[in-house]
């Protein structure tokens, strides 16, 4: 263990180092300088090294080891294969940007002490890494629960506020319901051998029925973590409650652990997935995508908006996985590989762009103290760095070429183009309609991003206090630049990414996307097919035309500019209140997708002296599923309430009776 001769050991060592950095935070728990300027940058460095190690190890064959830690006679198995390496790469690369941002972000204030936060943060990172390396159910669940708990503590950093405690509780509750389902899924997958190593599960041959049960349980469990509808309710609560770097990490990295889990279970542990599992994933994923993005469009809190947008993106990832499973199940292997590559690519893209956007909101939050979109605006003048870097993330999230969000959507649509060839009646008719839904979600994402960026950074400041906003500090800028560069490079060099992903997908699913032999600058999804996209050429063409136009205009005309007040329609001075609000921007969506929302309006009457207009958009799923469920639980609990007597001797009697009953059973 002490010497590092393999990439897996290197990864383990780096994870241990993360945990150590966390513990080191306890040395001087109240010192922002020590924690922020020393430990977090060190954590970021760890992330970079982890990303490099993981990236170089993707092509290497899988390695296994047994760690002699944990309970006696229950060692932890670890294994690193290409799939794990890819997600480690994602984790390391994203966390590097987030950690360096966090180094400049955390300040002294109420809530958790910086040192304690450092411990939670780095334990969170390490546990995510360990989830990826775990090779038995025991190690996996320990890491998974550590991840859930540490993130719970991070979410409730501001535990003084009741709504944050509430959000944290909801998160913990759903995380545990999900974990329970995963545990049950492992229980099914061991297939009677009672060996909980993943190797045993790979070897167990389940009947189709039990395999489906295991898959659905796993989908439920991981879906709860990924925020798939209807298990999404914690996400829009927990993400805004957490400090921004934590939101970024949760949305960017932690949600991807669920993607990893579904891939691991369906392709690796269960062997070959049935094709209809893919349909389930597609349906859930597409519905989540559409549901998430419409809710994102009507939000008025910027972090809540991003949280809903995460639901959308995870929905698209799961839809892509579903499409891959359908193709895989009917034997269309290269298309399966294409869809799975699209899924992994989109996971990676989302990790970068969503972290970038969350960090951008963090910077805004820090400098203005405001999360409500209705009180922001015009920040591009006061915070140009944050604004322009966030613009990169917003454009990427909107799925615009030549940035990265476009590439994965392009790949997914290319895969969907063949969906009608699936040799199953009905399915071949329904699948192409799925492409329409992907397109609709992508187009709505652009709407959401225009709203997000436009309302926060453009226009006039809606509050006078915004004039005092200041730009982000150096460390924060470095974090933002790192992630923005990631968005740019992932968009411009898709062929390298796809070459890497091809190896990953081939290793875990057996589906190989044949190499097309296209040059590095040209992306061709499938050989022998006339469809290509070249981001570098595209960017160069666009940029050169823009520059050329500007030069020509400058050369032949003049470039005089006069500043004047904006046109007010002859009405008098316009004020900032007359701009569209976030609610206003959501109006068309509320109108068109009215069926999704539970809208409560507060309308003024004609005689109000101080008229107020308000609209609150609620989630019908919350009303229809969770509230009745809560009532049911409450009622069941009430019917047992007589057990609670408040007298110690009664409780001792209960224990006594239980003991007697158990002993009687043993006879």
């Amino acid at each position, binding site marked *: 263990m002490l010497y590092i001769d393999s990439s897996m050991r290197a990864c383990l060592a780096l994870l241990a180092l993360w945990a150590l950095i966390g513990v080191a935070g306890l040395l001087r728990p109240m010192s922002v300088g020590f924690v922020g300027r020393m430990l977090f940058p060190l954590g970021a460095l760890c992330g970079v090294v982890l990303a490099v190690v993981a990236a170089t190890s993707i092509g290497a064959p899988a390695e296994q080891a047994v760690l002699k830690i944990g309970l006696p006679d229950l060692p932890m198995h670890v294994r690193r294969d290409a799939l794990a390496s890819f997600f480690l790469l994602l984790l390391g690369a994203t966390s590097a940007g987030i950690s360096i941002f966090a180094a400049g972000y955390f300040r002294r204030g109420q809530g958790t002490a910086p040192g304690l936060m450092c411990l939670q943060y780095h334990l969170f990172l390490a546990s995510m890494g360990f989830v990826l390396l775990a090779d038995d159910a025991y190690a996996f669940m320990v890491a998974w629960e550590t991840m859930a708990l540490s993130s719970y503590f991070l979410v409730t950093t501001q535990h003084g506020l009741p709504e944050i405690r509430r959000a944290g509780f909801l998160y913990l509750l759903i995380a545990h319901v999900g974990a329970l389902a995963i545990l049950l899924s492992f229980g099914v997958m061991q297939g009677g051998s009672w060996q909980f190593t993943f190797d045993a599960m790979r070897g167990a041959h389940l009947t189709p029925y039990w395999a489906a049960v295991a898959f659905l349980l796993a989908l439920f469990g991981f879906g709860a973590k990924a925020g798939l509808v209807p298990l999404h309710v914690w996400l829009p609560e927990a993400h805004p409650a957490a400090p921004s770097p934590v939101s970024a990490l949760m949305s960017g990295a932690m949600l991807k652990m669920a993607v990893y889990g579904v891939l691991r279970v369906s392709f690796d542990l269960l062997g070959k997935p049935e094709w209809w599992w893919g349909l389930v994933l597609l349906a859930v994923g597409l519905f989540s995508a559409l549901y998430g993005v419409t809710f994102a469009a009507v939000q008025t809190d910027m972090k809540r908006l991003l949280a809903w947008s995460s639901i959308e993106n995870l929905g698209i990832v799961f839809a892509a996985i579903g499409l891959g499973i359908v193709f895989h199940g009917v034997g269309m292997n290269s298309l399966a590989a294409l869809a799975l590559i699209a899924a992994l690519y989109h996971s990676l893209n989302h990790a970068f762009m969503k972290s970038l956007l969350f960090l951008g909101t963090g910077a805004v939050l820090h400098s203005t103290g405001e999360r409500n979109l209705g009180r922001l605006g015009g920040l591009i003048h006061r915070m140009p760095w944050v604004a322009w870097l966030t613009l990169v993330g917003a454009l990427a999230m909107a799925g615009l070429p030549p940035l990265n969000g476009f590439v994965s959507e392009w790949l997914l649509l290319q895969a969907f183009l063949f969906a009608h060839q699936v040799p199953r009646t009905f399915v071949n008719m329904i699948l192409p309609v799925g492409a329409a839904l992907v397109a609709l979600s992508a187009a709505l994402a652009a709407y959401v991003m225009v*709203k997000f960026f436009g309302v926060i950074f453009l226009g006039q400041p809606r509050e006078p206090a915004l004039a005092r906003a200041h730009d982000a500090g150096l460390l924060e800028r470095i974090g933002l630049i790192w992630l923005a560069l990631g968005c740019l490079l992932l968009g411009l060099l898709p062929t390298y990414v796809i070459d890497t992903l091809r190896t990953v997908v081939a290793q875990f699913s057996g589906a190989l996307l044949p190499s097309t032999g296209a040059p590095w600058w040209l992306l061709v999804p499938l050989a022998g097919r006339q469809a290509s996209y070249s981001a570098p050429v595209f960017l160069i063409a666009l940029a050169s035309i823009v520059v050329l136009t500007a030069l020509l205009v400058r050369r032949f005309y003049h470039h005089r*500019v006069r500043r004047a007040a904006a046109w007010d329609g002859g009405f008098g001075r316009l004020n900032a209140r007359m701009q569209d609000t976030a609610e206003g921007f959501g109006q068309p969506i509320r109108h*068109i997708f009215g069926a999704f929302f539970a809208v409560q309006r507060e309308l003024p009457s004609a005689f109000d002296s101080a008229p107020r207009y308000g609209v609150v958009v609620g989630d019908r799923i919350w009303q229809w599923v969770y509230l009745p469920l809560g009532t049911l639980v409450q009622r069941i609990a009430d019917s047992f309430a007589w057990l609670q007597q408040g007298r110690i001797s009664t409780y001792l009697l209960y224990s006594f009776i239980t003991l007697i009953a158990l002993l009687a059973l043993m006879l």
Partner: protein
Amino acid sequence: MKPLEILTQALELIAALAAAPLFLGWVNQCRAWLQNRRAPSIWLPYRGIRKLFHKDAVIAENASPLFRVAPYIVFGAMVVAAGIIPSMGTRLPFTIAADAIALVGLLATARVFLSLAAIDIGTAFGTLGARREMMVGFLAEPALLMVIFVASIISATTALPAIAENLATQTLGLYPSLAFTAIAFTLILLAENARIPIDNPATHLELTMIHEAMVLEYSARHLALMEWAAALKLLNYACIGFALFLPWGISTGTGGPLSLLASIPLLAAKLTVTGAALALIETISAKLRVFRVPEFLAIAFLLAVLGLLVHLLLGA
């Protein structure tokens, strides 16, 4: 072979840049005739653009650099789009860089920048226009993508030149699915180019306008670029329509320079007819309320999806 391809590419770009205002002028002229008005000169859009370039730019006080960059990006996107869409020949070297899906993305890029620039000033008009434009966009974009999907499935490629070439070179066939998608595409064209049932290009009435509300704050060279870009967008959409539904007469790989020459008058003829048809549609239809726009575009989306289903069922 190679020089001819580059020639085709250059010719297409120059022709698109030069002819876009002319096409707009022609549509306006036809519209005036149909409405019993005295028609403005067909060259009026050129004069407008020239005049605007010579004026001093006036920019709102709180405009950010984004506001000043946006016209160049929107214009650039439209020029790049003109380079992707095969209008005269299908052998275009640049088109390997972007297929039809990328074209949709490119148009979306232009739309997003236009909307962001409109929000930037922070007036009620601009934000209103931006919101409406994005609404039209998110409804029209998936519909357009579905239209392209149908054509792509028929031709087994998403490269526009290959689609055009495939349709142009095979014997005449009736594609019911293309009939559906052609109607859908016409609706999308009207919506995306701010034409009459959706938006009135000739009005500045704030209750109804979309595109004009967004460019309200622009003046001089910026406005000139925006207007030129709008004209290019209309031409581009017309050419997408030709490539998908009426590719006959386009110069394919086998033709040589002569067929390229022959394709020019044919393109002009198609544009003339299309312009007149567009003016006719605009004259006989009434402007929709904004609330009806989603229905209009939902129908376009539906027709495109129906086209896809019909294609899958009938294999045509």
